[in-house]
């Protein structure tokens, strides 16, 4: 399948700080793609650049064959986003917000209303008709943001920590919804600190560390790479199937940090 997301030498600096440097990504259409990295590695900066919230200092972004810099509006029509700050208008009700977003993405009034109702029902938010978003719980806000991201039927979905604060039942519903979307050809680009979720959902993963991509490929490819080079360093037995957490720690060097902290905080025992 043709790549849905391509970045070439994507770089972003903030004054003297280089947050993202020379990132080259290639994500095929219909892929469930996990984008991982430690805190401050450059994940959110990369997502912001991919969704038009932040201008790259240099480099190129292509979404579904569209150059983001040349045709941003057409590119934005193809994507749905659940950003870090959720992008909610908190003095609207959930239904008003979804209608508003639908209209912003070009849906006619009737379609926007129909889809809002469907999505609110799907997300189990339908009975909060008069509740303002500001009075929603964090999990409800997350679900609403996800509903807003899919209302126009995007071909690429960017999700920044979508399951944080969402209860297990809702998370299960959302996961099956997202998997259903990928089976219909939608590309999902997901960041999460919960590696078990990424391991269960994603077929491909990229790991960013200190602003640079340090690993990229399918989970099996990453497993093979780590098994050949650093399995012992993460305490894996020969032939053992590595978890994503072990792969992640091997790639970003978390093992040394763990041991060091245990030694330094011996008084905790």
């Amino acid at each position, binding site marked *: 399948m043709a790549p849905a997301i391509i970045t070439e030498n994507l770089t972003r600096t903030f004054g003297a700080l280089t947050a993202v440097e020379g990132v080259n990504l290639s994500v095929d259409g219909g892929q469930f793609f996990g984008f991982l990295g430690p805190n401050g590695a450059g994940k959110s900066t990369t997502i912001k650049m991919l969704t038009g919230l932040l201008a790259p200092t240099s480099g190129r972004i292509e979404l579904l064959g569209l150059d983001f810099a040349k045709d941003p509006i057409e590119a934005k*029509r193809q994507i749905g986003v659940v950003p870090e700050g959720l992008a909610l208008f908190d003095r609207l009700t959930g239904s008003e917000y979804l209608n508003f977003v639908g*209209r912003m993405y070009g849906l006619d009034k009737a379609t926007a209303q129909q889809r809002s109702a469907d999505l609110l029902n799907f997300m*189990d938010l339908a009975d909060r008709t008069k509740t303002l978003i500001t009075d*929603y719980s964090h999990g409800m806000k997350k679900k609403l943001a996800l509903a*807003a991201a899919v209302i126009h039927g*995007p*071909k690429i979905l960017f999700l920044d920590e979508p399951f944080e604060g969402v209860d297990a*039942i809702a998370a299960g*519903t959302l996961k099956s919804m997202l998997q259903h979307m990928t089976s219909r050809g939608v590309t999902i680009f997901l960041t999460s600190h919960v590696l078990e979720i990424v391991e269960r959902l994603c077929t491909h993963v990229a790991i960013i560390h200190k602003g640079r991509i340090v690993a990229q490929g399918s989970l099996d490819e990453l497993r093979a790479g780590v098994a050949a080079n650093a399995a012992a360093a993460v305490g894996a037995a020969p032939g053992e199937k590595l978890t994503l957490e072990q792969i992640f720690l091997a790639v970003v060097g978390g093992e040394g940090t763990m041991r060091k902290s245990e030694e330094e905080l011996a008084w905790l*025992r």
Partner: protein
Amino acid sequence: MAAVGGPPGLLEQVWLVGRVRWLMTRRTTYRTVAGATAGVVFRVIGFAGTAIVAAVFGLLAYLAITDEKRGGLLAIYWGMFALWQLAPFRAIQLRGSFDSTPLLRFPMRFSTLCALNLAFGLGDPSAIAGVARHLAVMIAIIIARPDAWRAAVLVTPLSIVMNLFCSQMLNTWLERLLAQRKTREIALALFALLAIGLQFSRFIAAQVRGPATAFFQRTYLFWTILPPGEAGASLNDALSGHIGAGLRAAGSLALYSGAFAGLLIWRLQKQFRGEYLGETAAALPVRETLPLQITKSREVALPRNVHAVMPEKLAVTSGIFVKELKYLRRNSMALMNLFRPLILVVFIAFSWRQPSFRDFGVANRFAFPEGLAFVLVIVTAQLCLNSLAYDGSGVQLLLMAPIDFREVMLGKNLYHAVVIGIEIALVLAIVWLLLGPPGPLIISATILGAVFESVVLMTFGNWRSLKQPRALQFGTVRAAGKAVRTQKPSAATRFMGLGIIFGSIALLAAIAAVANWISGGWSVLAAYFVLDLVAFSVYRTMLAATSQLAMANRDELLGQLAR
């Protein structure tokens, strides 16, 4: 597990929390040299102001005793009480009170929480000022009547303690009441009305002085049996040689203090047990789980991809317009601020009703432009200079959606125009009702002038809203996470905005004077019409550049609004 010592003592905990509070204040106030300088100046002025007010109270007490005015001391203690107790209400508006809830996770005794509450209550600037006023009055009493020193020394600490318990009790109860967003917004609206009332206290006092005096004289006894009245009455009795009555009044004052302390402790106990005052619990009652409903919801078809439609231009603009109207309806503070200036127009109209103006027939001619200019200065500045303020993190959506940002600003400006139109109609209605019709020439010229001023400010405001946005929270008057003085637009925007508003009004006035002098009143209309066309043309050009400006300022917009 390593051994952990017992919790620190009461004084140590008060000291630790006090230090944290000081650090927080210092790092908010003294982050820049300008901030530090302003902080020092502010404190010096505050100290001087406190000393002057205390001295005035002392002088009044001295005069009340030497002139033997029995009601004088009563009024003084009521005045001191009112000033002290206004502080909790001021804290509602500025959200300046110290929240002790986060401290509850520490191993803290209930007595420590009580001590902290009282310590911070006493450390509050309003309490320090209150104590200063009490001490000044005590000294004045002793100077005026040295023989009454025992009464003064007894009543002063009793009154201070009563005021302290009362203000802390009000604080904790207000916190409870205002935990809900709606209650908070209603309280803010009432507070704003009170503030307007205070602005016109002289005018109101002139109207109601006679009946009010008669009312207070008739209800004198009632005012003496309430806490501040008891303080004044106790001193009055002591000064008259009625020691027994004085002691009885002082005892009543102590009882009131005990009652306030009881109510305070009751609330603090609830806090100590982990009372939750958030809004979500009230807004979202626990519901029964309905498995069937969940199954049904999962069966709902998800939207299929639809990429054939581009957002219609009107859809974006009208969407933003409707959203702005909904936001206004749900923001009592903004609503109040928009219609508050109309009250001032009523006062302006009243001031033009004097016979000297009416005889010359100028009242209805000048009141409309004057009133409208006054309203526009306040309203356009408030609407246009920081028009993304309440969008918060929603601005991300506006930047991510496949839309031209120009349409967003157009929707906002349309909303501004509707509000300004309503204001113009209301000002005209007020002037018409109170002074008579201003005449077609004055009405047309004033409206054309208002259009010019509004379009100029929208043009400037669109630029500044994108260039230097500032987040505002609903139900407060301060910027999110910022100190009070940085509220609303940035200082530079406010300064430039005011310059533009006054410049526009001065230009309109100059054109009116010149055109009127050269060829009579109707030529003013032609001149204003040309001015409007020029303003619209500049507005259109600037609006076309809005999208580019928004994209270029994404960092600033997200950094300020979507934090």
